[in-house]
């Protein structure tokens, strides 16, 4: 359950929106920040705050790939698999990251720190291959630099 002050804050934000639905992404992101992912409980809470049915929230939640309806690691690494990054070696980067992290795409490392996900274009084609971790963009991350990239992430979060 989210704390009361957080609920109040969300209710305030929803009331400031022109339609409730338009505040949905904001509310889902806040709840995700709180829980780490958007659990069924969070969907129910989002629905309560937004005045929508849980199913309506579900429809939106399952559309956005950065809203996680399954538990994820502390850091979610989004690796772009759209055409620009693909042509600059994005596919090899993803494979390299699988090897470095010892997980398959879509899975979370055993220590629960990283989740590796492919994603749609991040709008960072100029710096392809592009990666996003949390809300921060990285690029270009070459396949050769994958190991150093992960090391950097571990160090900066330590």
């Amino acid at each position, binding site marked *: 359950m989210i704390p009361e002050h957080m609920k109040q804050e969300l209710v305030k934000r929803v009331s400031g929106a022109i339609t409730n639905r338009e505040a949905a992404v904001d509310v889902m992101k806040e709840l995700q920040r709180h829980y780490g992912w958007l659990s*069924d409980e969070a*969907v129910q809470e989002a629905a309560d705050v937004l005045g929508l*049915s*849980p*199913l*309506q929230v*579900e*429809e939106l939640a*399952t*559309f956005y790939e950065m809203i996680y309806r399954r538990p994820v690691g502390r850091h979610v690494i989004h690796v772009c698999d759209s055409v620009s990054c693909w042509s600059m070696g994005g596919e090899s980067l993803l494979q390299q990251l699988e090897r470095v992290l010892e997980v398959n795409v879509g899975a979370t490392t055993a220590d629960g720190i990283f989740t590796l996900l492919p994603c749609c274009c991040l709008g960072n084609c100029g710096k392809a291959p592009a990666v996003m971790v949390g809300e921060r963009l990285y690029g270009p991350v070459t396949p050769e630099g994958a190991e150093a990239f992960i090391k950097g992430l571990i160090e900066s979060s330590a």
Partner: protein
Amino acid sequence: MVNLTIDDKQVTAPKTATIYEAAKLNGIAIPILCHDKKLKPFGACRMCLVEVEQMKGRQIPACTTPVTEGMIIRTSTPDIVKARKMVLELLLLNHPIDCPVCDKAGDCDLQNLTYEYKVDANRFTDEKFHHEIDYNNPLIERDMNRCVLCGKCARICDEIVSFGALTFISRGIETKIGCEFDEALNCEFCGSCVSVCPVGSLLARPFKFKARFWSLTKNKSVCGYCGTGCNLTLGVKDNKVLTTLYDENQGFHNGQLCVRGRFGYQFINSDKRLTKPLVRKNGKLEEAGWDEALELVAARLKDAGASTAALATARLTNEELVVFKQLLQTAGCGNYDHSAGYAHAALTEGFAGSFGASASPSTILDIQKSDLLLVIKTDAYETHPVVGFEINMAVKNKGTLLKILTDKSGKLSKLPDARTLVHTPGSEIAIINSLAKVILDNKLVDASAAALPGYAALEKELAAFTPEAVSAQCGLTAVEIKLLASAYATAEKALILFPVGQAYPGHTAALANAVANLALLAGKLGKEGGGVLCLSEKNNSQGAVDMGFQAGIGAGRIIDGCADGSITTLFLAGENPLVSYPDHARVQAALDKVEFLVVSEMFLTETAAMADVVLPVCSFAEKEGTFTATDRRVQHIKPAIRKVGQSRSDFEIFGALIAKLGGVAPGTPASVFAEISATVPGYTGMSYASLGVEGQFAPVELKPAFVMPNAPAVTVEPGKLALVTGSALYHNGTLSQYGEGPMHVCPEGYVEISRADAAASRFAENDLLTVSSAGGSMKLKAHISARMPQGVVFAPYHFGANPVNQVWSGAPVTWITLAK
């Protein structure tokens, strides 16, 4: 109207029409998958692509594009045909093409279009879906592997049913139609989604693997459950009704049905149907021949004469009721009634006094034309679900305001901007009087009102009903009452709806008077979209009232008469008072006491099991006649199947008995209907031909007057809970117990309690509770819900296995205690 050219043909169409509608109006068919005339345009499937010359030959969807003046449209150029073929190829890429094992084959839009466009190969390759099939409920199977994502199921569930059980989830390449938390479907099971599914993704499980679509004979009929008068298409094979079929052009409701209408047909060919007459010999009911049984009944009727009484179900046809009356008169019986008496008092006493006619002045068609709907009890949705759909559509599409006066909230309360005023049980009449008082005080009275008889007396009598005085006892504030009154009075067109029925003893003649006064004061009658509509319970309740099947002492005192010995012979035609009348012990004692009990029934009901003679009768699907819906729409039914076993129609039985008593038996239902149309007010000039497929409204002639209703004082018993009875959404009367669909989703009685009361007493869902009242006690499962106010509990009345009349003695509010 706008002028346009479609396929070189000069045509006209309303300016609000889409290209698809304009073409259809002019007999040009454009293929569709995702479009349904009842739903808002969506444009998902791209099957309806057409070319519009003004749009430089671009291909545009006909279902979403409005027509404009001078448009030149081509619907089937080689390019268009090519594009449609590709749409089909792409759909068939993921579709499993398992037609030989799919129940939809023969009735499948995708299959039909694939044949029509001769798509016999695919240039593309892709994987099929691998979704798990949802077999979790007994009525609707969901196989999302066959889905073409037209969205009709999700849209009908939202736009018309207003439940919202389905939507697109994981939008993108993996889109599918899913339920809450991607779990199993759990909804009200009306099956609207099944009816509109263009492929085999949503199937009616009770019909699965029963027959192929093309082998069914399609027979039109009228639903045998509630008073809405929905039209049905029965799918018949080998003299069995196997399913109901969707016909979007049928009835005012465009083929929409509720769970009872769509999934409750199994009683027609139930194994439990009685097929031979039963006669009690040595204390046991034994099979007998028709001659023996009828001879026995006739002899008894002859002997008993005036000490005979009769109760009929309001599911008999108008013709049967007329002939039954004739039989009873021939036998010298002067006491007969239907539906427990009080269940139709709103019409026969209430409206008769206020409007000079025992019928509602408004029709179901007024709902979507209204500006404001005032619904008394959210139960209106449960008792008449298809009327509920009309309310949903009025509120969601037409912006109609919805105000609800109720003792518990309900599904209607969830509609956009619905205002639900939850009052203490039993105080609705006082509140409505108070609304009338506010209208008087605030000078909102319509100019026509002062001239009506009884105005001065009403003004005086209403003096006691100030909002302040009423608010003290009804659980609403004076401000709420005043706001509702002014909203009602100032709406251009306002319609009041209220259900009546055996489970609603509080909806009396006085309530009808109060409601009528309000409408008359505010001048809401006589306008399209305004007025008052009383929702009667059974499919021919209004017909029974119109045929005047009511004489003498009334149903309640007939039961008393049986108990005190003044009535020696009781003829029950389809009525099951042991379950549906108040006070089980009293009815039981009366039926034990009565010397001779004749029951004509489809099933060996609890009541029939006590009879001396049981006459097996046939269902609505086996007989001819007319039914009058709650808004006086008279509809003609024809047999869809031959009579089951040796059963006969009530019409034949009553006719045979009349002959045995030395009277002149009536000819045919048609000749009796001719008699009705010559004698019954409003039915004048009707004939089978004039009824047609849509039916015909019997006009209601109004002679309005004010009748002051008595608002009964509700005595509160401290420390006890207020039990209100009613209808469950899945049931109607006691008949639906023999429909498999309703029994799958709602198999037994329950007591619905608020979360607060449950928490206070530590009751959990499905706990078996002992319900005790002054009249008795019984066990019911607990159902905890958010809609019940604290201190109020609800129990539906339909179930023979645990009838709520063991604790309910007919009071609008019964004070009870609950214990685990």
